[in-house]
C-alpha cells in the first residue's frame, strides 16, 4: 500500500470519528423530544381530566351549597322540586348493586372458563375459546344493550310478570360484558403458575381437580382477584348498555326484578337536557366526579392486590 493513500486514510479515519452530521444529530434529538412530548401528553390529559371534572363536580357543594353528606346519603332525588333535593344515594346503590351482581355471575364463569382453557383442554382453549372470548370483548356495548333490550327484558317480563327493566337484566348484560375481561386476565395468571407446583401436587397423588383447587388456584389468587376487580371497574363505568335495560327509576329497588338507576345512566339521560351551570347540571357533574373517584379506588385496589401478590411470591 502506498504511503500517500495511507496518510489519506489515516486522516479520513479521524475525520469520520470526530465529525458530526448536523442533520442526523438534529433528527435524533427532535425524535427524542417528540416521543417525550407524546408521553408527557398522557400526564397532561389525566391531570386535566381530574382537574376539570373535579372543579365542575365540586361546584355543587361550594357554589350551590349542597351538603356533601346529604348528597351522598339522601335517598330522594328530586332536582326539579321546590326545594330541589339532590340525593344520589339511589344512583350509587344502583351502581354498586348492578356491579356486584355482574361480578357474582361472571367471576365463577370467567375463572371456570380460564381453568378450562389453561388446565383441562389447552388446545381447544387456544383454538376455540380464546378467539371466542376476544370476539366477545370486541362487541360494542350498545349492541349488548340492544340485545338485552330486545331479548332479555321481554324474557324477564314474561317469566316473572314484571316490567322487565330491572337490576337483574342490568346484572346479566354486564356479566356478559365483563366475562371476557375476567376470563383472559385469570387465564394469564393461571398459565403463569409454575409447572413444578402442579407436578409436585400430582406426584403426591392428588387428582387433577385437587391440584387445580389447592395449588393452582391458590397461587394464582392475586391474578384472579385482579381479573374480578378489572371486570368490576368496567361494569361500574359502563353507561349505555346498562341504561338501556335497567328502567332508570330513582326509587330504591326491593328485589332483583325492580328497576334501578346507576350513576352512569343518570348522567347519560339528563346531561343533555339540563342547562350548563344550573345546580341540577352541576349535580350531574358531581356524579361524574364520583365515577372518576371510583376508578381511582379500583386502581388502588388493583395496586394493593398486585403488591400482595408479589409478597406472596
Amino acid at each position, binding site marked *: 500500500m502506498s*504511503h500517500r493513500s*495511507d*496518510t489519506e*486514510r*489515516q486522516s479520513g*479515519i*479521524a475525520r*469520520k*470519528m*470526530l*465529525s*458530526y*452530521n448536523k442533520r*442526523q444529530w438534529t433528527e435524533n434529538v427532535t425524535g427524542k423530544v417528540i416521543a417525550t412530548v407524546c408521553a408527557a401528553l398522557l400526564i397532561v390529559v389525566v391531570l386535566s381530566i381530574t382537574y376539570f371534572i373535579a372543579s365542575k363536580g365540586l361546584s355543587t357543594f361550594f357554589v350551590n351549597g349542597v351538603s356533601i353528606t346529604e348528597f351522598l346519603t339522601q335517598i330522594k332525588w328530586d332536582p326539579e322540586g321546590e326545594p330541589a333535593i339532590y340525593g344520589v344515594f339511589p344512583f350509587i346503590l344502583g351502581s354498586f348493586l348492578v356491579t356486584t351482581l355482574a361480578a357474582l355471575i361472571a367471576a365463577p364463569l370467567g375463572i371456570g372458563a380460564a381453568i378450562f382453557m389453561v388446565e383441562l383442554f389447552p388446545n381447544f382453549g387456544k383454538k376455540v375459546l380464546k378467539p371466542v372470548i376476544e370476539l366477545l370483548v370486541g362487541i360494542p356495548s350498545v349492541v349488548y344493550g340492544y340485545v338485552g333490550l330486545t331479548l332479555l327484558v321481554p324474557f324477564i317480563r314474561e317469566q316473572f310478570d314484571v316490567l322487565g327493566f330491572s337490576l337483574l337484566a342490568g346484572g346479566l348484560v354486564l356479566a356478559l360484558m365483563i366475562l371476557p375481561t375476567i376470563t383472559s386476565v385469570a387465564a394469564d395468571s393461571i398459565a403463569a403458575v409454575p409447572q413444578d407446583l402442579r407436578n409436585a401436587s400430582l406426584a403426591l397423588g392428588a387428582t387433577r381437580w385437587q391440584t387445580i383447587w389447592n395449588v393452582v388456584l391458590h397461587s394464582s389468587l392475586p391474578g384472579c382477584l385482579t381479573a374480578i376487580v378489572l371486570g368490576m371497574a368496567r361494569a361500574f363505568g359502563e353507561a349505555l348498555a346498562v341504561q338501556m335495560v335497567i328502567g332508570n327509576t330513582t326509587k330504591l329497588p326491593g328485589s332483583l326484578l325492580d328497576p334501578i338507576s346507576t350513576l352512569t345512566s343518570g348522567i347519560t339521560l339528563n346531561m343533555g337536557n339540563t342547562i350548563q351551570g344550573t345546580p341540577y347540571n352541576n349535580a350531574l357533574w358531581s356524579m361524574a366526579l364520583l365515577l372518576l373517584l371510583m376508578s381511582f379506588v379500583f386502581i388502588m385496589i388493583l395496586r394493593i392486590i398486585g403488591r400482595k401478590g408479589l409478597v406472596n411470591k
Partner: protein
Amino acid sequence: MTVSTLEETIIRTRDVSVYYGEKRAVSNINMDIKRNSVTAFIGPSGCGKSTLLRSMNRMNDLVPSCRVTGSITVDGTDINSPNVNIEGLRQVVGMVFQRANPFFKSIYENIAFAPRFHGLTDKRKLDEVVEESLRKAALWDEVKDRLRESALSLSGGQQQRLCIARAIAMQPTVLLLDEPASALDPISTMKIEELVMTLKDEYTIVIVTHNLHQAARVSEKTAFFLLGELVEYNDTSKMFTSPDHEKTEAYISGRFG
C-alpha cells in the same frame, strides 16, 4: 508525514477496565492491535473477551450500568473522548455478532440501509456498493438473483455472511467479529474462516472465538484472557506451540475451559 511515523498500530488500549455496576469484568488491559492483521481473543466463557471487544466500538454504551476506564485509541483518537461522534466511530469500527441478525428487510436493503443513511443516495452507486460488499463476503453468486427477497429466507451461514457484507459496505477500517461462527454448522464455519483470511488484506480484524483451532487457523496474533485479565498476547504460532505462560499452556492443551 513519513512512512516511519505512520503507526503500525491501529487500536491501542491502555489500562482498560470495564465495570458492570460494581463488578469488574475486564482489568487493566494493555494491548496494541496491528493494522491489516487478524487478532484472535480466546479464553473460557466469562473471561471478558467479548466485553473488551464490545468496548472497542462502544456497544457497551447500550448497557446503562457499564463503565469503561483507561484509554482505547483507534488510529490515535481516544474513542471515549467527548469529541468523538459515536456514529462515526462505528462507521470506522464495524461489528458482526454471535448470532446472525439481518434486518427484517430484503437482502438488498440490508446492505444498502447504512450507506444510504450515511449519505450515499445515488441509486447506481448504491447498487455498486451492494454488489461489491456481497462479492467480498463471497455471497454474491448465491443471492444475486434474489436481492429483493427477505434476508430471513437465507440459511444461517448465508445470513452471517450477509451481516459481514453489511458491515463491509460501511467501508470500515476495523471489523470486530464476536464469535461469528459459533452458531453455524462446520461447512458454514469454514466459509466464514476463509472469508476472514481474505478480508484481512483490507481490514483489521479482531475475532473473538471459543474455538482454539479457529484461532490457530485464521489469526496472526492471539490474546488469551482469563478472569478479566490478559494473560498472554503473542504471535499465534508461538502461542500454540510454546506459550510463555503456563496458564495459556494449560488452557490450550485442554486442561480447563
